[in-house]
């Protein structure tokens, strides 16, 4: 079986190389600070973080995206394609049956010129490499959700708060309900906003967070209290987008309607249309391709555009996943952007499913 996974890994790598991808590798043990910085404490529940007496905290590679982006930033060639293969390690705190180490074979395209075509290239390359295995495709677009939030007629502070929690659906919902006036403001907050001397009986100033920071937040709460609620109509549009579950062409026509009322999403919808066209040109049957408005919201928060996955028809964890992560490259490139999209395949799962037979 191990030999089979090795052979399957080589087959996938050779395939991606034949598409012009440069093979790259990465260390297995990586500095943890970058990942902690990106994902916060949640990464500790998903990756093996371990202290090193000299290097500080290290992590067993949970995926290749961060090291590959860091490699890319050394040269910044554009356009360029990469492929890699190797083990990744994931803690499985809730399900002992799930693998804690497995091989990923990846294909990444850095192309700032033609994003729609790059999305299609990656999606098609991954799908083709699955070689007819019995899978169903799932697609989504985080960029559409970002555009919908940015297009709301409300304050920048509220938009920023919603965008920050795009990947935490529970908190996103409670913030949206608050900003729509559906959830009442807690009594303690109303009292604080109305108070002439908020610091009366507040005790001594202790800690790194200073009085000026507390005052700044009180000021922002006062500003927020003056902000008109987000309309029920706009909230309904956001819900409609999150609830989309249709074929890609049907979704697109729905979105064209929604864009009449929520013009902020027009560019994102145009990009979706361009992507669908690029998919057709790449030989993908878009007529039956599913699209979910909420797809990709609960994974690690670096995808910010097109997202996809391939799932066994019989159910279970995805055999391949991927997406666009422009903001991640911008973050790791300290502001310099390098639009990128990529995907990974798990050869072990693919073998179990069986492709060509």
């Amino acid at each position: 079986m191990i030999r089979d996974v090795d052979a399957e890994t080589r087959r996938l790598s050779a395939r991606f190389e034949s598409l012009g991808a440069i093979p790259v590798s990465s260390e297995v043990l990586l500095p943890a600070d970058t990942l902690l910085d990106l994902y916060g404490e949640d990464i500790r529940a998903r990756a093996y973080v371990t202290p090193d007496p000299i290097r500080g905290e290290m992590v067993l590679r949970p995926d290749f995206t961060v090291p590959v982006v860091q490699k890319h930033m050394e040269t910044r060639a554009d356009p360029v394609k990469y492929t890699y293969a190797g083990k990744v390690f994931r803690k499985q705190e809730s399900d002992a049956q799930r693998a804690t180490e497995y091989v990923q074979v990846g294909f990444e395209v850095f192309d700032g010129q033609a994003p729609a075509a790059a999305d299609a290239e990656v999606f098609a390359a991954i799908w083709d490499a699955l070689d007819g295995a019995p899978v169903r495709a799932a697609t989504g677009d985080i960029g559409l959700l970002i555009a919908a939030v940015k297009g709301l007629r409300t304050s920048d502070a509220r938009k920023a708060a919603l965008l920050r929690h795009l990947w935490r659906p529970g908190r996103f919902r409670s913030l949206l309900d608050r900003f729509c006036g559906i959830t009442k403001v807690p009594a303690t907050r109303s009292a604080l906003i109305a108070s002439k001397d908020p610091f009366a009986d507040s005790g001594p100033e202790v800690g790194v967070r200073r009085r000026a920071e507390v005052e700044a937040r009180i000021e922002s709460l006062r500003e927020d209290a003056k902000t008109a609620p987000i309309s029920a109509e706009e909230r309904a549009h956001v819900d409609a987008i999150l609830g989309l579950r249709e074929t890609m062409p049907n979704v697109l026509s729905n979105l064209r309607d929604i864009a009449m009322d929520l013009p902020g999403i027009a560019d994102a919808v145009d990009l979706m249309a361009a992507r669908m066209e690029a998919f057709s040109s790449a030989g993908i049957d878009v007529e039956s391709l599913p699209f979910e408005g909420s797809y990709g919201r609960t994974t690690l928060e670096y995808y910010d555009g097109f997202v996809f996955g391939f799932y066994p028809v019989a159910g279970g964890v995805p055999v391949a996943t991927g997406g666009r992560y422009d903001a991640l490259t911008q973050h790791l490139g300290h502001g310099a952007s390098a639009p990128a999209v990529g995907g990974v395949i798990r050869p072990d799962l693919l073998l179990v499913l069986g492709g060509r037979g």
Partner: protein
Amino acid sequence: MLKLGVPSKGRLMDKTFDWFGSRGIGLRKAGHDREYSGAVDGIDGVELVLLSASEIPRELAAGRIHLGVTGSDLIRETLVSWDSQVVELARLGFGGADLIIAVPKFWVDVDTLEDLDAAAAAFRATHGFRLRIATKYHRLTREFLKAEGVADYQLVDSQGATEGVVKNETAEAISDITSTGETLRANGLKILSDGVIHASQATLFRGRREGWSGAQRATLKELQRKLGL
């Protein structure tokens, strides 16, 4: 033999002995006071094992003891998916303490987790690092904050005197056990109004019955009957 793990000292041990004693099962330390061996009266086939309360979850999960009394917080903190590894037989009604999130009282703008999350975002932007929460309950705190959608914080380990970390500027907030809240107040801290992670109390647990003999199963039945469970 059915092995029953009980905290090896202090109020928790005394109260556990009282709880069993009032139900007709005598538990006591055997030999000298400093020895950690015990004796059981009122039932045959039960062996008393005196252990640190913090070791009882692990021993139960490993099957080295069959029953154990410890804080429900320690079970949840130590064991992944605790309810698939041990079963709660009885809450004993003492050893009560809450695991809570507390922040400086002077943070008048922070009363809820929603406030904490917003303050954490601003803190990170201002100071360039994530807001630090000191705790020894890493798993419980992380799972709670994840479920509540709080971001931009980091957990820093604190194994004692956690209430002092804010004053010492090694953390901005704490996640700690409190029973009366007095130490918190003395250190200028307040509990978030929705910041109770877990209300803990001393609880009798049993491990998975994998590999138990017929005699051990019968002893458990008899013990449960005597305890009225």
